[in-house]
């Protein structure tokens, strides 16, 4: 049972890690935690569903279409709203992202209604392999592999491509980046687009397990956010590790202690960790100088 809990914890942890990654990418460049992340992912998943079911395209086309939509949505949101904010204090920015969340939730609920649907997925959740006393489904394996692959891609992207290095430069010192010829506005839009795509991947991996309705991402968003905070909102690796740790701890708690209060322990742990390490487990704590 322990092994089973660990395996499903890793699988959910991958989802939380993906959401946390998307969150941290935006936080590092735009200095705002994106509360609209979940709804952006949810709408992209619905677009994939529409393309697959209503228009009967192939899997590849639908998923690529959904990714393009997600990228466009992210870039549009950054361009239209976040950039125009006159008063860039953290509360205003958080409220703008919360506003996105409400708008997107309303649009999705309006267009697709509250019926629960099933996203057809090339990898099924029901074919399982036996690993000793535990079972692992194909979907879990796919989730883990895709997450690891994405993290590897992100690592390579940030280290070896010009755009990635430009993103890191923008995050570290926007003014110096502009002096060096980097178009920071374009980089910000690209950051949002990238983060939105990662969120869409998380949404599409979650949809076969949970039912596809507008409330799909409400809970995972909070868990993903919590794991980003747990791992440290300024490090990508930390956020991903935070996701896995949260997934495993949550599942172990749910299995051994109490299934009902599973979510509460997640937040309880976060608050506890934040009391001792205010910037998260893996991040360096920046002390504000006067």
């Amino acid at each position: 049972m322990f092994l089973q809990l660990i395996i499903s914890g890793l699988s959910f942890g991958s989802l939380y890690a993906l959401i946390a990654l998307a969150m941290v990418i935006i936080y590092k460049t735009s200095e705002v935690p994106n509360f609209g992340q979940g709804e952006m992912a949810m709408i992209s998943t619905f677009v994939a569903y529409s393309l697959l079911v209503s228009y009967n395209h192939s899997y590849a086309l639908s998923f690529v279409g959904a990714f393009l939509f997600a990228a466009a949505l992210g870039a549009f949101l950054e361009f239209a709203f976040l950039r125009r904010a006159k008063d860039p204090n953290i509360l205003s920015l958080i409220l703008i992202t919360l506003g996105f969340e409400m708008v997107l939730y309303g649009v999705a609920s309006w267009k697709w209604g509250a019926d629960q649907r099933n996203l057809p997925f090339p990898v099924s959740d029901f074919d399982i392999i036996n690993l000793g006393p535990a079972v692992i489904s194909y979907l879990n394996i796919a989730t883990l592999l895709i997450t690891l692959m994405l993290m590897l891609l992100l690592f390579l992207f940030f280290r070896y491509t010009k755009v990635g290095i430009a993103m890191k430069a923008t995050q570290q010192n926007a003014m110096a980046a502009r002096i060096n010829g980097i178009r920071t506005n374009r980089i910000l839009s690209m950051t949002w687009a990238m983060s939105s795509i990662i969120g869409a991947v998380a949404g599409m991996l979650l949809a076969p397990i949970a039912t596809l309705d507008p409330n799909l991402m409400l809970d995972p968003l909070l868990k993903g956010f919590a794991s980003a905070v747990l791992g440290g909102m300024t490090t990508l690796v930390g956020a991903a590790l935070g996701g896995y740790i949260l997934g495993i701890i949550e599942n172990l708690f749910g299995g051994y202690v109490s299934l009902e209060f599973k979510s509460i322990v997640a937040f309880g742990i976060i608050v506890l960790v934040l009391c001792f390490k205010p910037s998260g487990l893996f991040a360096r704590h920046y002390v504000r100088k006067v």
Partner: protein
Amino acid sequence: MDMKRDYYEDIQLLDSKVLWFWFLMLIAALVTLPFVTPKYYIYMANYMAINVIVTVGLNILVGYTGQISLGHAGFFAIGAYFTVLFMTGLHLPFLLALVLAALVAAFFGFILGLPALRLEGPYLAIATLGFGMAITQVIGRWQLFGGRMGLETPSLMFFGLDLATDTQRYFLIIPITFLMTLGARNLMKTRVGRAFIAIRDSDIAAETMGVNLTLYKTLAFAVSAFYTGIAGGLFAFVLGFISPSTFNFILSIYFLAFVIVGGLGSIFGSIMGGVVMTWLMLELDKVQELPYIGELLISFSENWMSVSGLPNVASIIFGLIIILLVVFEPLGLYGFWIRTKIYWKTWPF
């Protein structure tokens, strides 16, 4: 608008005879409102009053002290549930139960304020968010609180009178709202209020000037939770029935939206924000019934979207209002009011 020359002038509620006149007019209007309007508007007025109390409380925390709280639905829930429990379980009279429940909420606010001493920005947001969710989950699962079915509120016995109709409750809720708003406004003019404002502007500088950060930050959370607790207790009676699903994350966001729309850091703004947004919330629930726009929306829904989801237009409009106000007018409705006033007073310059 005018310069205050000493402390006595600063703390005066009404500066001139004209303002006194309008103030008495307001009180007269509030008193006569139930006799001239249909019953539904009295329910709306009760709801508005409750939201005004919450907004004022949250503004103390967010607007005046500069902290973030995404968990105020939790304090709202604590106020509601504990009032009902004190009245049904311990058979306490209404006012005592209300105040005790609000004190319980204030205690939890104090506890939430303790991690807030070390956290700021998104970390504080997450901690408060987690707290709000934890409260809702615990209340939802514990049988003492009625579990998922919720609790039914008892009849409101106030000094022997049974306040059963909306009008009678109105005459209880409006004075309470009035007192609490006045209290908040006066609190902000004392040294406690000035300590809060100092913490918002720069807490390091405030600490060097001798403001005890620990005391005042936790006090801000506790006071804000007290206000929200009182509002929650009154809400239980306005609604008649409380269940855990009403106190969700979306409610916390709505509270924050009320504060932002009204204007951060201003009591008058909180009142405006609470009233306007409550009206909007209640009206948008029936968006199909608007004269022209309703039919337009329904035909649009039938062609492109699902008709059953039409009430979600409320969510879209709310979100758009929040975004547009934050982007274009950070000071909210109070900002519009002040700018209009300044333009009027200084015309033609």
